[in-house]
């Protein structure tokens, strides 16, 4: 309405308009009134598009306080300003707390600082999200780390998808129903304590699975997607205790060959309800759906993926290679905003407490984002994890968004997924060690991340210590931080695949190729 009123003013300037203009020159640009007036001056343009000429005219009519606008023009002049090809973007996400960097980048204005106008839209499931990124309905999305990898090597839908930003580490848990939990306690009396010793392995679950097999009943558990971290984690956890989670083959894409436990895909938000209905007896899923089970009293989280593999990659920001080639600067701008969001999420005070997580939980609880209740989301976000009412543990690293270089796209993270895909038969043929390194270079794009990081450093929005050293080769240190203590060296993928009891075995000659 006000625009209309002023719109009239433009054409028939009443005496008031002159007075208004005199007033404007008295105020600096930051006061409310000129804003009003600029907007009004622009509504004079009949077309819906405001052109540069219109702006020039509007700017000419307003006395801009030079010192306020370009005071540091001297120092800013040498900074590179990204020429963003596509300012209006639409990203997809799934309602999980680890979409936080996207939500924060939007809500905290990091995207708009880069001149990006981003809409983020919840998707109904991982497959729909991937398909919509591939056919261009979405510019990019919050993806499972395995999705760009699976798509690029052609497991499921084939498309070349790349990632230059890792959204987070950890953040998942494995939950079993109350009944299974009490049976596990029967098998292992130590679990009966109010605060049992962690990590809890699947050893006490094995007799239960065996007795189900004996009676010819299926032991069903849920995970969220065939190439999801959750699938590889729950398989790792089960196989570490000698429970066979089933193999994939060319024909069997459900991954149920020789399975003791039948793993099936259930969308994350439906996990608690499906568990309550008895369709599945346990599941592996991201937050808030493990805490939801505790809050509603329908299940018990037995372990988190932090215990299965400390600081394991979880979600990435994925785009198609084609999109990246068309919009290289836009991609860098997006990564810049995400890095700032990640930093914001992991900000701590002097005592090392996470300071922004409560606010993040509040933002995420908005119905258009994660939408679960704030007090469900904030448990894990603020660094506590409720295993049972009697067993509440501080887990400051349950969600890592930025520290430990969590946001850097490490080649070794990509290779771990490839080894697991081969281990369980999703990759149907043997591949030489060199293939793993090549694929990692195809999919993970640290160069884009570096470029964004360098720009942030020169703008003073980040410090060089936030990022890996310039000579870092993209391979994280060899680690044994797994629930079974197995050693993972990304430079020897063949040796790693062969180190497991359950899973495919490769011929040793491949390691040298």
């Amino acid at each position, binding site marked *: 309405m006000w625009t209309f009123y002023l719109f009239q003013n433009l054409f028939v300037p009443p005496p008031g308009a002159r007075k208004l203009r005199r007033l404007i020159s008295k105020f600096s*640009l930051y006061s409310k009134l*000129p*804003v*009003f007036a*600029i*907007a009004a001056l*622009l509504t004079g343009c009949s077309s819906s*598009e*405001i052109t*540069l000429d*219109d*702006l*020039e005219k509007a*700017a000419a009519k307003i006395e*801009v306080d*030079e010192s306020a*606008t*370009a005071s540091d*023009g*001297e120092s800013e*002049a*040498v*900074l*590179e*300003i*990204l*020429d*963003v090809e596509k300012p*209006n973007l639409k990203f997809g996400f799934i*309602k999980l707390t680890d979409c936080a960097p996207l939500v924060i980048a939007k809500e905290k204005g990091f995207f708009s600082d880069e*001149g990006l*106008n981003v*809409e*983020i*839209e*919840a*998707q*109904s499931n991982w497959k*729909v999200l991937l398909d*919509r990124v591939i*056919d*261009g*309905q979405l510019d990019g999305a919050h993806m499972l780390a395995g999705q760009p990898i699976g798509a690029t090597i052609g497991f499921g839908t084939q498309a070349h998808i790349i990632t230059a930003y890792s959204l987070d580490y950890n953040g998942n848990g494995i939950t079993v129903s109350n009944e299974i939990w009490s049976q596990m306690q029967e098998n292992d009396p130590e679990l009966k304590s109010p605060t049992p010793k962690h990590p809890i392995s699947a050893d006490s679950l094995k007799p239960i699975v065996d007795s189900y097999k004996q009676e010819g009943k299926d032991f069903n558990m849920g995970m969220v997607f065939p190439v999801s971290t959750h699938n590889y984690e729950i398989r790792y956890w089960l196989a570490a205790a000698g429970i066979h989670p089933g193999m994939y083959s060319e024909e069997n894409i459900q991954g149920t060959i020789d399975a003791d436990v039948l793993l099936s895909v259930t*969308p994350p*938000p439906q996990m*608690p*309800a499906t568990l*309550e209905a008895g369709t599945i007896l346990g599941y592996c899923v991201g937050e808030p759906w493990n805490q*939801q089970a505790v809050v*509603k*009293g*329908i299940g018990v989280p037995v372990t988190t993926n932090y215990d299965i593999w400390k600081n394991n990659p979880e979600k990435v920001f994925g785009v198609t290679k084609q999109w990246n080639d068309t919009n290289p600067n836009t991609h860098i701008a997006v990564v810049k905003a995400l890095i700032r969001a990640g930093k914001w999420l992991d900000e701590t005070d002097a005592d090392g407490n996470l300071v922004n997580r409560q606010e993040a939980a509040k933002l995420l*609880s908005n*119905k*258009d984002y*994660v*939408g*679960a*209740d704030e007090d*469900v989301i904030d448990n894990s976000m603020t660094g506590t994890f409720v295993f049972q009412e009697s067993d509440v543990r501080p887990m400051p690293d349950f969600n890592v968004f930025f520290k430990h270089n969590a946001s850097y796209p490490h080649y070794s993270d990509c290779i771990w997924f490839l080894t697991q895909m081969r281990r369980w038969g999703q990759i149907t043929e043997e591949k030489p060690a060199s293939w793993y390194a090549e694929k990692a270079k195809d999919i993970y794009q640290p160069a884009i991340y570096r470029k964004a990081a360098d720009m942030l450093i020169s703008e003073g929005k980040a410090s060089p210590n936030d990022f890996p050293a310039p000579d870092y080769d993209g391979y994280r240190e060899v680690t044994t931080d797994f629930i079974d203590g197995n050693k993972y060296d990304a430079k020897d993928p063949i040796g790693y695949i062969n180190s497991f009891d359950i899973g495919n075995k490769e011929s040793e000659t491949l390691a040298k190729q």
Partner: protein
Amino acid sequence: MNWRGNALKFCNVAGLPLLEPFVRLAAGEDVKEQLKSISKFILLPVATIAVFLFLWNAAAKTVVTDSMKLPSPGETWAAGKELFAMHTAQRAADREQKKEKVTEAVMFLAKANKMTALAESADGERKEKLLANALVLKKKAVQAANYKPTSAPTFVDQIITSLKTVFIGFVIATMIAVPIGVLCGMSPWCNAALTPFIQVFKPVSPLAWLPLAFLVIVWAYSGAKPGETLFEKAFLISAVTVSLCSLWPTLVNTTLGVASVDKDYMNVARVLKLSWSQQLFKIILPASLPLMFAGLRISLGVGWMVLIAADMLAQNPGLGKFVWDEFQNGSSQTYARIAFSVIIIGVIGLLLDRIMIFLRNLVSFGNPQAA
């Protein structure tokens, strides 16, 4: 007493027979008779609604599982009010944002001008960089000035999207079903040829059509860039699914309407030696309109019903997506919001139905039917 006749006629054509007793009361007809009608058509439904609300309230106290709870009418109403409040708040925020962006645009321009000024006194690489930055800033200024809000669609936006989708789907369905229906009605051969298709495709659920619609739309758009097309893919997929499910009642009814045109009319047409097109437009179509509209009314009802499922799957940001997203949220508000949207969906369905009745009565040549 002419106004009375007109008013009664209006009540009839508009499909609002419940206003009739009031008109008759005003015209001074038998009061007892009218009160009987009023109590039958107005007081009784009000009473049953009250009973329903009471039962619902009672049910809300008992239907409680560990993770879910049936919302009471009060909670549902509150959730609905909140949804509309969110909408107004969002709109205000968007307007605020737009204003800020315009200011930002002018800031960018001022910066760009400053850089151009600096470039005049600089030289070499610095000059190039300054000029390049000034250009980018000018581009940014135009972008900021033409900012379009990117907040998530509100409940009201989703209702509007749903209505648009159904309308487009319904138009597509009508454009397919009416010509084919006329053809089948006029030619028994054609009818026999198409009957198997009609019989086989009619009972298919929207969920089965959707992947096929998806495939066709994605294929049709394979060359186009997103954002440059008239409609979003998801919107079209939803709309096409709606039309595939809702064209059958129109088709069948049109066929029936055209086939059952009074023989006397056709004989008159022959006597007058009317041409084929004259026969079609002067006699056959007008005579079959009432049945055609009866079909259209069923089609629209079916379309609105399947839309929710289509939206859910196609990710079209309408009411179906609202229901699905809320279901995924699993928050304490979820079920109240879904209950409210169910009522809204029902009320909109009722209104659409009434509009169709009104249209049908307009073309039924003095034989309006109330429902």
